[in-house]
């Protein structure tokens, strides 16, 4: 996989939203004052009559989205993940999920790579919160190219509530459109049978680099892009457990409740193998340069590779 240049995943989300909006006039977009910052400016400019400004009032936005969806519209409400998934959790639970309506929720500013804005704006608990809700689908594309496909899939294929997570910073854009995007079907990016790295979002690129580092030490790591957290791809997880016997998960999210937990829930029930979790170690983020923060909190290729080496050492010591 080659980095064709860094791009923010939110840009891909915005392109997908625009494309789906061109194809279907029922698609509408809600704005909570940060329209450009969350990738909705292209849509708002192209379809001013289908862009509804609601101000800094996320709880209301979520309920309005439910009402629009009940009437057959396909509302897309994108805001920072901390607000989309946490401030409005009760509206998402009752008005959206319990009514099981097709609301597309965009969760921007995922992870510590948000950078200088600091802890309040770095979404690190959103996957946990969204995946626990019945009827919800949770998507976490790996780069801008995939974010475009994920947005289109969320709008055109989902029938119920869907949460799409994406980041703020320009990050390596390496996936290709011809890889496709099927909800619930993970992507095998690198074969390997010594160890499996199951990653999501920005950490997929890091996982690919980690596999390179491990290969130079003679460890052949499989890399799986788990772009759908819910429904999680049980088959690929169990194949990885059976065929490699050791799994490292990597996510820009708390190590509790997110991808790691979703994978572990499958593994421990059906084919227990040693696991290691790379992610935020149960603490808040802070201000800093995105790369510095990912290094400080251990969400880099080197950290994944190190977790893999330790995991294999532990496994063979068993």
């Amino acid at each position: 996989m080659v980095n064709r240049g860094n791009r923010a995943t939110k840009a891909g989300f915005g392109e997908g939203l625009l494309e789906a909006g061109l194809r279907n006039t029922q698609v509408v977009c809600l704005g909570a004052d940060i329209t450009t910052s969350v990738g909705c400016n292209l849509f708002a400019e192209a379809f001013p009559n289908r862009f509804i400004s609601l101000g800094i009032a996320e709880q209301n936005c979520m309920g309005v989205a439910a009402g629009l969806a009940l009437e057959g519209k396909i509302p897309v409400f994108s805001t920072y993940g901390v607000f989309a998934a946490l401030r409005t959790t009760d509206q998402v639970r009752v008005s959206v999920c319990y009514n099981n309506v097709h609301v597309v929720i965009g969760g921007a500013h995922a992870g510590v790579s948000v950078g200088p804005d600091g802890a309040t704006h770095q979404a690190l608990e959103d996957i946990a919160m969204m995946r626990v809700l019945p009827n919800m689908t949770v998507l976490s594309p790996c780069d801008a190219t995939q974010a475009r496909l994920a947005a289109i899939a969320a709008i055109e294929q989902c029938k119920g509530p869907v949460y799409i997570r994406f980041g703020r910073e320009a990050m390596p854009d390496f996936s290709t459109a011809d890889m496709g995007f099927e909800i619930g079907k993970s992507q095998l990016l690198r074969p390997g049978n010594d160890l499996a790295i199951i990653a999501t979002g920005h950490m997929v690129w890091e996982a690919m680099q980690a596999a390179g580092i491990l290969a130079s030490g003679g460890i052949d790591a499989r890399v799986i892009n788990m772009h759908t957290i819910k429904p999680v791809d049980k088959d690929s997880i169990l194949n990885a457990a059976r065929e490699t016997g050791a799994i490292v998960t990597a996510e820009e999210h708390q190590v509790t409740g997110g991808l790691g937990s979703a994978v572990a829930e499958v593994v421990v029930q059906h084919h227990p193998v040693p696991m290691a979790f790379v992610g935020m170690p149960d603490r808040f983020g802070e201000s800093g340069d995105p790369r510095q923060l990912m290094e400080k909190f251990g969400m880099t290729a080197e950290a994944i590779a190190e977790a893999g080496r330790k995991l294999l050492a532990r496994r063979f010591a068993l």
Partner: protein
Amino acid sequence: MHSRQTTNPEELREIAIRIRKSVVASLAEAGSGHLGGSLGLADIFTALYFSVLTHDPSHPGSPGRDRVILSIGHVAPVLYATLAHSGYFPVEELATLRKLGSRLQGHPGRDHGLPGLELSAGSLGQGLSVAVGMALAAKMDHKPHRIFSIHGDGELQEGSIWEAAMSAAHHRLDNLTAIVDRNGLQIDGRTEDVMNLEPLPEKWSAFGWEVIECDGNNMEAILNAFAKAEAVKNKPSVIIARTIMGKGIRSIEGDYRWHGKVPAKEQVGDFTRELDETVDN
């Protein structure tokens, strides 16, 4: 689509008594639920479903229907009794309220397939936002149907109500009418002791709404308020309906302890007699 079934207040009052009797019976059978608010709202529900709404109980989802959003899901018994008496489903089904497998969930749940139910709701402060979304959709599609949302006065302490109120006025949603059940009571006691709401009409007015006040247990006054609301242009309207919790059963009227209480089965006879004795409203 049939609408404006009757405008005769006398006839509507009789229907309201039948609905109240069903509310009492279904709650006694359920053994738990909210009697006080359900009885207080019976006249408003009767006016809506038997006079004001454009709807067709034999075609519950027809696109041209007016929508009723019950934000305060805990008064589901009066919604269910009204839907049943309107013909959405058999009145006998009211006896299944709150029981396992029933379409009549303790708080309304659309996943159980009850005809005529617009929204799963029960967590306070959310229904007005959903109603705003429905009203926006109708405006975007140039559809003439109207949206009614029903709220408690205690519910107005939720901040999200005021977010929604601001947005309805901003988008000039004159197809939206909110109804506030102003019974002055909530679980902990009088609203003015728990958390003061006044000056309530001025608050709505300052948020850009047309405010209509009425006696919510007087059929003529209710019909008059709905007529005024329909005539409002370029802004949403709110009917602040003064009601009496437990209305129709003299021995419990105005007693906040009946907010979340139900009659024992042995009390149903007495309560039904009291409802029959209600000469006028």
